[in-house]
């Protein structure tokens, strides 16, 4: 489990601003998002969906979310 943090995201080379990370929530549940190091995506644990980040731009359109498979749970930090 990894929480959104500026240090983590900069290490991941995504350069997502800290303020941005503090403001963004899951578009469907409105709950906080978690950054997944393995998939470099934003994860909503509340509904089990991940959202991609493309070229530093978070993609938080609900229909573009991917349902997390059970086996991917094992890869979460």
């Amino acid at each position: 489990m990894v929480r959104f943090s500026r240090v983590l995201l900069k290490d991941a080379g995504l350069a997502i601003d800290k303020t941005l990370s503090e403001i963004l929530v899951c578009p469907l549940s409105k709950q906080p998002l978690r950054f997944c190091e393995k998939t470099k995506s934003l994860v909503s644990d509340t509904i089990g969906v991940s959202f991609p980040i493309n070229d530093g731009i978070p993609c938080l359109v609900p229909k573009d979310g991917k349902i997390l498979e059970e086996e991917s749970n094992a890869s979460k930090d």
Partner: protein
Amino acid sequence: MTVLGLALPVTFTGQQLPVTSRSRHSLVVKCSSERQILFNRIAPVYDNLNDLLSLGQHRIWKNMAVSWSGAKTGDHVLDLCCGSGDLSFLLSEKVGFNGKVMGLDFSSEQLAVASSRQNLRDRSCYKCIEWIEGDALDLPFDDCKFDAITMGYGLRNVVDRDRAMREMYRVLKPGSRVSILDFNKSNQPMTRFMQEWMIDNVVVPVASFYSLAKEYEYLKYSINGYLTGQELEALALEAGFSSARHYEISGGFMGNLVAVR
């Protein structure tokens, strides 16, 4: 979104889409994916066409929209349906490097243009802009986060205007404003006639040079399917805003809704 946004009651092929529900204000049709494709497709020429078709006036309208939003130094603001970023850039000049601008759009191509423009322009205040691919009907923000919201040529294009207004209300801080710029659906027959004449005889022919005539032919029907100023005010009040006022600008061709949470 900028000047030449569209709302499509039909597909590009002219086939009518099934109507899934009817709200008091408008038909709700499920074609947001096709609109997304549309705006992705016209992204490369969007800015040039806006300049050409409005003779540069769209810059004036957008400056007015930003002024009406009340955005000021240090604010955190949201630009919905930001497209290639015109309003976002203007907002960043208002809020400065200590503020924050979130530019949200559902078109990845439009956001790519916006991001490129941000990188090309050498102004420190532009660094405060963050681009987000998202849906105006399901905003990825918590409640009461923003000091101001702008929306340029976007409300006419969303598939559920009630829902969009309620989302804007939700993420606004109490006492803050939303400023929504779009074409004006005028009650004056002469204004409506001139708008349609301009679209038929100027907009569509010019768009045809860019092979986008089909897309812009729908602009007339899109405006007809939009809400009048009074209806927009009612929409905002129903969404919970404490006050709402619609201002007609540019001879009644354009309008700007200002609502206070």
